[in-house]
């Protein structure tokens, strides 16, 4: 009897298993090109996961409404299958497998964060599924010889090294002392590597090197050390939570540093919500609405910013912008390849050389975008209204860097 029950459970297990898979989508269903994406809808990356998803969705709507994708004389529309990777790399890898082997997806859009991209990349590489990713910036993704990985964003190590160079420049060319606090995750540690390289290159000194836990809540210890040691530059990278916590506690503890450089300021909506506290902070960004790149779908940065705001009720951080760009890249590649064959699409992707509202896109051998520099903007306030103004590189600057940051007692 026990036997029967057990066999019964296994058979029903099989049945449920088979039924729980979605209908197997081929690469193209009817007039839809199906893309797969594992996105962090829950978990610690959920805030940026949502930015990414919004970016993807807006681009899909825009492209579909403006004539779609033309392949072989027919017009196709984009469609994305989303799964929630819960900000967990194991889950992300599992979902990539699922999208490819169960759902039959043949083209992938990247997840949010380097860690998750690192987990998914081996899967897409194995199956020869081209993936255009917009939110995995770790340099280690591009040194593995992946042929099917294409990143529209600049690698992580380029985020803040410019800040160090700027600091040295403002210091009359003399080396500076740098304090840093980086979250214990793939992306932030990569940013740290870039900063370390810049320190070495300029002969500067690293005086504090803290690794923040993923559940970061309180940077008081690091900031107390900063107050004691008085560095020339403080660099903080800890995703959205890191930016918020840093800005709040620096204001609260009245930490005076001549230069404060961070990441994820716009994702944390710093200038909008914490203007006075985040004033003078330097932020690394992959994109800014004032940059003069153009394309035929989103026109330019300012238009994208306005359209996004209308759709989603908040200003797009660069995570959204680069996600939208990923769809533009795919469209362009499909049309140049004029085929749905994965290898042909992959080759077309590799030959990409285009300008989008987000920036120029051209992929190197390893898959990274070599044609789009990072920008640094500074939060500048006029009374109570604060805005992000691009201060570096000089080619794109719309304002002059304010350095050193006036001390708290004078604000």
């Amino acid at each position, binding site marked *: 009897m026990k036997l029967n029950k057990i066999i019964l459970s296994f058979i029903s297990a099989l049945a449920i298993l*088979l039924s729980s898979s979605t209908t197997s989508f081929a690469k193209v269903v009817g007039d839809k090109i199906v893309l797969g994406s594992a996105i962090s809808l829950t978990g610690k990356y959920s805030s940026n996961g949502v930015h990414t998803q919004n970016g993807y969705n807006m681009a899909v709507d825009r492209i579909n409404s403006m004539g779609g994708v033309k392949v072989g004389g027919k017009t196709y529309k984009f469609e994305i299958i989303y799964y929630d990777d819960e900000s967990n790399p194991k889950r992300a890898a599992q979902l990539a497998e699922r999208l490819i082997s169960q759902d039959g997806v043949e083209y992938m859009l990247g997840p949010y964060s380097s860690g998750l991209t690192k987990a998914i990349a081996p899967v897409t590489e194995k199956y020869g599924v081209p993936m255009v990713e917009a939110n995995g910036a770790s340099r280690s993704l591009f040194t593995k010889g992946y042929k099917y990985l294409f990143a529209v964003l600049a690698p992580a190590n380029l985020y803040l090294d410019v800040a160090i160079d700027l600091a040295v420049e403002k210091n009359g060319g003399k080396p500076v002392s740098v304090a840093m606090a980086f979250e214990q995750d793939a992306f932030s540690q990569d940013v740290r590597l870039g900063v370390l390289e810049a320190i070495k290159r300029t002969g500067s000194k690293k005086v504090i090197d803290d690794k923040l836990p993923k559940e970061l809540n309180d940077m008081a210890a690091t900031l107390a050390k900063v107050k004691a040691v008085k560095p020339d530059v403080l660099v903080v990278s800890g995703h959205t939570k890191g930016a918020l916590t840093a800005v709040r506690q620096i204001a609260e503890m009245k930490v005076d540093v001549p230069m404060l450089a961070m990441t994820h300021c716009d994702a944390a909506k710093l200038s909008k919500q914490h203007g006075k506290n985040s004033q003078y902070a330097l932020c690394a960004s992959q994109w800014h609405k004032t940059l003069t790149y153009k394309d035929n779908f989103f026109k330019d940065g300012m238009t994208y910013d306005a359209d996004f705001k209308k759709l989603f009720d908040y200003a797009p951080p660069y995570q959204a912008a680069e996600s939208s760009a990923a769809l533009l890249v795919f469209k362009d590649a499909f049309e140049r390849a004029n085929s749905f064959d994965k290898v042909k699409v992959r080759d077309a992707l590799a030959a990409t050389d285009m300008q989008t509202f987000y920036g120029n896109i051209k992929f190197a051998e390893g898959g990274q975008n070599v044609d789009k520099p990072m920008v640094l903007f500074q939060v500048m306030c006029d009374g109570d209204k604060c805005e992000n103004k691009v201060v570096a590189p000089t080619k794109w600057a719309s304002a002059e860097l304010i350095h050193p940051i006036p001390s708290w007692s004078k604000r």
Partner: protein
Amino acid sequence: MKNNNIILYAAILIFGVLAPFMLPAFKVQLSILCILIVLALTWNIQGGEMGYNSFGNILFYGLGMYICASVQVGMFFPLAEWTESGGEKTFVHTPTQFFQGMAFGLLAAAIIPTIVAGLIGYAILGLRGHYFAICTLGLGVAAGEISGGIEIIGAGQGFTTPPFPEIGSLESRGQFFYFLSFIVLVLTFVAVKSVYSTRFRLVLNAIRDNEDKAEAMGIQTMKYKIIGWMISAFFCGLAGGIMGGLVGYIDSTDVAFDGREMGVFMVLMAILGGKGTLWGPVIGATLFHLFKEGFWTYFLGWQYVALGVLIVVIVIYFPEGLMGWLREKYPERFGEVVDEADRKAQVELK
């Protein structure tokens, strides 16, 4: 009875061997299922049979994961360079190196956690009840946090395990890991089953029912507790090693010492199926995995709500699990003799 059993086992074995070919799209899912069953089966040794609810078996799982990958890499390349800068340097394993490394890696992944269990067992297993549970929880979390700060195994940037070599077809990797996990599952099941048919199980049950009395009767409970833990550690380590290779990217708190998910899930799976039984954890793990995957597909965005409700329902209404519930309803089928008069005479105390 014996005939039935052999047919059952043969059926399962055949299904297991043919599964990756019958359901090629589900290879990874099935591999994960095998690993989950291993975790649930071994947890049951502590939780179900011995009454020691451990939230820390994940410690051995995570250790196994890191050790297997480290050995597999370290045998042929400098480990520190492999993980440096988040894994920028590329080293490629030849197929022979990959499999050799995997073999030795798994061996180490099984043995070292077992030794660890033996070493810390005396201290940790001296705690009882919920103190044991909490202490092991602390162990699991501490391991995850601390390993997240150790540079040589990747620290915050994670550890990318060696990619499967370019041999065979696209299916080869999936098949390899599937059979690996299936074989480990079979080994675990056989080991656990044979342990259960000996006096060892009775001792564990005695410890569960009343440890002091067992001690008073002269049983060296500590010895048995430690051995039980070592058995669990052995297979959990193996499971971890395999999972590391399967996922391809090891993150200290999200993949290796995944206390929040795997650590708690192994407990829930055993309870869902019925702790204290042999098949309970197996059925529990299977059902749990099915539910979870089903929720993730149909309740996207609400999956955790659904899972949370399921957990609450299981825990409150079916704490004895499926097998336990079946046992209550059909005790005869489990070989228990029930005296009808006795049953009628029982008065329920409200």
